């Protein structure tokens, strides 16, 4: 038996819709096998992982809190990936945004006015754009591989954060813990309801709607897709590859920065050595699972947020390591990529030596 691909005459719309569903199903099946291998009842474990977190109002709020950065970063990355620009350093841009935005409440704790929050958010966006702008600039100016530079900047931003919270930005009244001072009320994103949910969720919704319009209804969206899928055609149309690289990096960096400052100001309320459970990397999965479509990303953002919550829940109730979350997320991306083959190709199993149309 040999596996062969046969090109479809055109993209299969059905498969484009079905492939994420197949991928999720395959992930769940693999998860069941994994849990069984760990000596758990697969049904109970999967219930704890993916259903139980949806049954309480506090955990639904937590779901929104975790989905917020994933969606904000994911829609930005979609613009990058659609234009064939590989920003994989969103985690660094998230951190840079959090750092830039936190400058205000940490260095000027006395500055409490109605301007504090808007300024923080703007600085957060600027910080993310700056961090995302570096690989874009290097790519455009010197032709440097943006995948490697954007990733290296993740490590650099995390070390910068680590140094700041252990050194110059450490809370003077914090008993030497590596933490910044706690943000004042004026520097805290207001809660949406009586709980953990904060205004950041609204930013995510706005970003999804705005990018849906930009990608589907504007010339810019067309430009992004043409340069991604047919760079030569794009050049003849007069679109600039370099401009789109800079645009994609600044946009996704800015959104990641906004996600960073929103998370710190709305959820953590201070800087600590670790401020993200890998949102910037998980958002890559969110973007692909959502088919690089803002609405799809909105949905997949919630699914991956659920995997974080499920991991925590399964650890508490069943004693399963919360590391399984990362395994699930990795598997999911694998399956998504594998299933995407079905959109362009039909898969056939041929006997060795015998080919349909001859070798």
């Amino acid at each position, binding site marked *: 038996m040999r*596996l*062969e*691909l046969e*090109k479809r005459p055109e993209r299969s719309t059905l498969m484009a819709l079905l492939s994420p569903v197949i991928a999720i199903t395959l992930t769940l099946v693999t998860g069941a096998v994994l849990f069984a291998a760990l000596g758990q009842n697969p049904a109970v474990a999967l219930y704890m992982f993916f259903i139980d977190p949806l049954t309480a109002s506090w955990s639904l709020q937590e779901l929104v809190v975790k989905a917020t950065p994933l969606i904000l970063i994911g829609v930005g990355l979609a613009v990058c*990936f659609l234009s064939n620009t*590989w920003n*994989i350093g969103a985690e660094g841009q998230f951190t840079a945004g959090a750092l830039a935005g936190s400058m205000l409440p940490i260095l000027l704790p006395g500055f409490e006015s109605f301007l504090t929050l808007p300024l923080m958010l703007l600085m957060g966006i600027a910080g993310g754009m700056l961090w995302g702008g570096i690989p874009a600039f*290097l790519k455009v100016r*010197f*032709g*440097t*591989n943006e*995948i*490697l*530079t954007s*990733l*290296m*900047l993740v*490590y*650099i931003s995390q*070390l*910068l954060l*680590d*140094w700041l919270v*252990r*050194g110059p930005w450490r809370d003077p009244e914090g008993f030497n813990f590596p933490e910044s001072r706690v943000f004042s009320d004026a520097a805290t994103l207001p809660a949406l309801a009586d709980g953990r949910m904060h205004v950041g969720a609204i930013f995510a919704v706005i970003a999804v709607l705005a990018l849906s319009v930009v990608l589907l209804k504007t010339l810019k969206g067309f430009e992004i897709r043409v340069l991604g899928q047919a760079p030569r055609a794009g050049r003849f149309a007069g679109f600039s590859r370099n401009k789109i690289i800079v645009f994609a990096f600044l946009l996704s960096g800015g959104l990641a920065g906004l996600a960073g400052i929103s998370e710190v100001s709305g959820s953590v309320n201070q800087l600590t050595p670790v401020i993200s459970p890998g949102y910037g*990397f998980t958002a*890559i*999965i969110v973007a*692909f699972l959502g088919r690089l479509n803002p609405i799809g990303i909105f949905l997949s953002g919630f699914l991956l947020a659920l995997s974080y919550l499920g991991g925590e829940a399964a650890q508490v109730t069943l004693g399963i*390591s919360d*590391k*399984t*979350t*990362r*395994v*699930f*997320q*990795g*598997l999911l*991306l*694998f399956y998504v*990529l*594998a299933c*995407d*083959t079905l959109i362009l*190709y039909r898969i056939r199993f041929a006997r060795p030596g015998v*080919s*349909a*149309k*001859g*070798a």
Partner: protein
Amino acid sequence: MGAFESILLTVITAATPLLLAAIGELVVERSGVLNLGVEGMMIVGAVMGFAGAQATGSPYLGAVFALVSGMGMALLFGFLTLHLVANQVATGLALTLLGLGLSGMIGEAFVGQPGIRLTGIEIPVLSDLPLVGRLLFGQDVLVYLSLALVAGVSYVLFRTRAGLIIRAVGDNHSSAHALGVSVLKVRYLAVLFGGACAGLAGGYLSLVYTPQWVEGMTAGRGWIALALVVFATWRPLRVLAGAYLFGAVGILQFHAQAHGVAIPSQFMSALPYVATIAVLVIISRNRILTRVNTPACLGRPFVPDR
């Protein structure tokens, strides 16, 4: 042992994992495949190498475990990108994410456990020579293997028919296919070789560099290895030079601290990453150099038409 000698010894241990991973990836990229999952294969190699050494009591069998697990990860990558023509960049990222997750799960039981060190060889007389004895004749086998691999890859790629085929597949897969070369087979073998090297590189970290398991202990070395291949413009001997250069940068922080240099440790830790960006910029500025050596089909999928 003099200070200079001890610095050289640490440079060698820091450079070897980079060299192993980079020389493997070089072959993969020469065959036209871009596997960005080096970090993932490496970290799985690290945890499996540790686990293998614990289970069997032998660090050498641990290294074999590391090698095989790296190949297993590479096989997964190969199936997706070669058989299912999935996007290579995205699949490589998926491999890294999966590897980081898997290794964290497998390694949870090993956190804080003392490891088994793969020690250097002892050659009577030679290893005891003054100055050069430990340096030249007292390393562990993987150091010698890494150097042999550089020589071997260099020879095979540029002096043998097999190497010609690998480079042909990487530079023009359609022509290679038309000449009757099985493009997928060559690429599979290259990807598996890369996986074996990356797995071994990870095993080196958990068996020699710091004989223990720490989550995320590869700390971006897989990515630095990828950058080294670009830095070396796909040339084995330049990979050797680059790996030792980065090994030296990587251990700078320990020696700076030992000599009481008052720079925050985080700045020193960031040095390899900053250096990576710097050398990438320097090498990319020379567009001709890069263009001449880059495999022309790098990252482009191949679907045989029948």
